């Protein structure tokens, strides 16, 4: 009958109205600044840079390849490449960023930088309390503010970080095996050369 659905709906909202006074489980929200809910693993706000070990300057995974800078749709990343090289986690000499800045007032949290990064160096943060009184300088994050440890990454995105670690470990093992193979081959060729010489 016409109007039946309206009455059902009114009954439902009335139940919610009175129920919310008596039944705490009904409440869908928390009193935010005092109460907090743990951030969800799939949450993402703005990117940060991952570093291994304890020293952020030494352990930064970023090799300043500038792919993220080029791919960023709103162009909020600014990178300055270093002149010299320093060894990365695998021991290979690599460039590093002398300046790495993200303007989070421009960033649209699309995660494209994370997807294109070949070095697992840039990941999405879950930090959301970013309000500041300085809307220009305060929202332009520099290298030091962006650098977060791998442990922090494990804290906020446990599953994803474990996958990344496994992948990096596999790469490292492969690289080590190759280096070892190369060393063996080199040793063998050296031995052959000395044998020929003898």
């Amino acid at each position, binding site marked *: 009958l*016409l109007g039946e659905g309206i009455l059902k709906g*009114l009954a439902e909202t009335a139940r919610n*109205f009175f*129920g*919310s*006074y008596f039944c705490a489980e009904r*409440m*869908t*929200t928390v*009193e935010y600044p005092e109460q907090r809910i743990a951030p969800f693993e799939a949450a993402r706000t703005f990117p940060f840079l991952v570093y291994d070990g304890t020293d952020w300057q030494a352990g930064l995974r970023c090799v300043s390849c500038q792919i993220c800078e080029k791919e960023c749709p709103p162009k909020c990343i600014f990178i300055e490449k270093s002149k010299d090289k320093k060894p990365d986690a695998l021991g290979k000499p690599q460039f590093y960023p002398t300046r790495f800045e993200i303007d989070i007032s421009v960033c649209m949290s699309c995660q494209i930088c994370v997807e294109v990064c070949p070095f697992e160096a840039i990941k999405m943060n879950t930090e959301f309390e970013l309000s500041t009184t300085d809307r220009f300088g305060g929202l332009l994050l520099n290298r030091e503010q962006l650098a977060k440890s791998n442990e922090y990454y494990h804290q906020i995105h446990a599953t994803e970080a474990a996958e990344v670690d496994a992948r990096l470990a596999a790469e490292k093992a492969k690289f080590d095996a190759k280096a070892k193979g190369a060393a063996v081959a080199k040793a063998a060729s050296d031995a052959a050369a000395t044998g020929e010489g003898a």
Partner: protein
Amino acid sequence: MIETADQIFVLLLHWLVSFLPAVLQPVASAVLCAAAIVCFFPALFALTTWLERKGLGRIQNRLGPNRVGPFGLLQPIADGIKSLTKEDIVPFSADAAVHFLAPIVLVVTVFMGFAVLPMGRNMVLADLDAGLLFYFAMGASTELAVFMAGWSSRNKYSLLGAMRAVAQMISYEVVLLLSSVVVVMISGSLSLTKIVAAQNQYTWGLPHWYIFTPWGLAGFVMFAIAATAETNRSPFDLPEGESELVAGYHTEYSGFKFALFFLGEYVAMFSISGLGTTLFLGGWTAPFSFLTWVPSWIWFFSKLMLSIFVFIWLRGTLPRLRQDQLMNFAWKFVLPMCLLNLLVTGLWRFLGDGWLRWVVCSAILLLAYVGIALGEQRKKHIGPRSYRYAE
């Protein structure tokens, strides 16, 4: 003592006016009454915004505002300060004069309606013989303000919102008038005080409110539907449709002008609730004869707040209608029912006292309700939309 409590505002007015010379007294009395209305209803508006946010919150299992003051009671004051300190932006290509006038016209016409509403025994600013007519004249001119706002803003969202508002308000104005006419047919007067007086009788302790008759109940339901549409409240909030039109006709208003539109909307809601109360719920009369000692204005405002609560409840429950559903509902369902209700009221008037008129009138209305609803539903004029190509 009871008499004094009932007439306290009238006595206060007489006492205040008595300080003035006799020539000035009528003018002073009118000014004081108008000032009381203009002060009281915005205060009630502030309270209602708080009530509404709390109520909607609870309906959605949230707490609602609770930060500013105890239970968030000072929230309306914070909102007021906010809207007062905001920049007043007038679009570059807007018609500045009309853009400026629209909110004022809205608020003025909305407040004019209160002039004829009896808010208690002897508590009416202007007891016009054609009070109901005056009320509808004022109610209809709010459409002008809405269209002024939409047209002068030079914004397509504003204009779309205003077009929708005018289409909706004119359609439902017809329903509103026809559903009120039944009261005039029975009470034989357009004066709102006489309509209340006609309902101020008791049988077995129960009042003779018009809602307790078959035609009155049907009329009240249709009046409530039309009133919701007329005040642009959900589920008939198409003119603002924030998910479709930004904010409808007041998209280009900011700061205090926006606050005036907001105020006008709520005050219109109070005034139409007051009219519904007067026409169908016995105005300031008590619901039981043993409660007649309670001051009459308390009854009027309790009934008004009850209607406001129903408005909030409806807003928290129903989704917005689509434009075609809105129009079909008005012209194909509510209007035929209204016309039938006129016939039923005539029958009621001439069938004489006794149980026969109760049976006949109820049967006609019920059959028509079921019949029209089923017929329309079969023709798919009411109900979910069917798509020809999209499925």
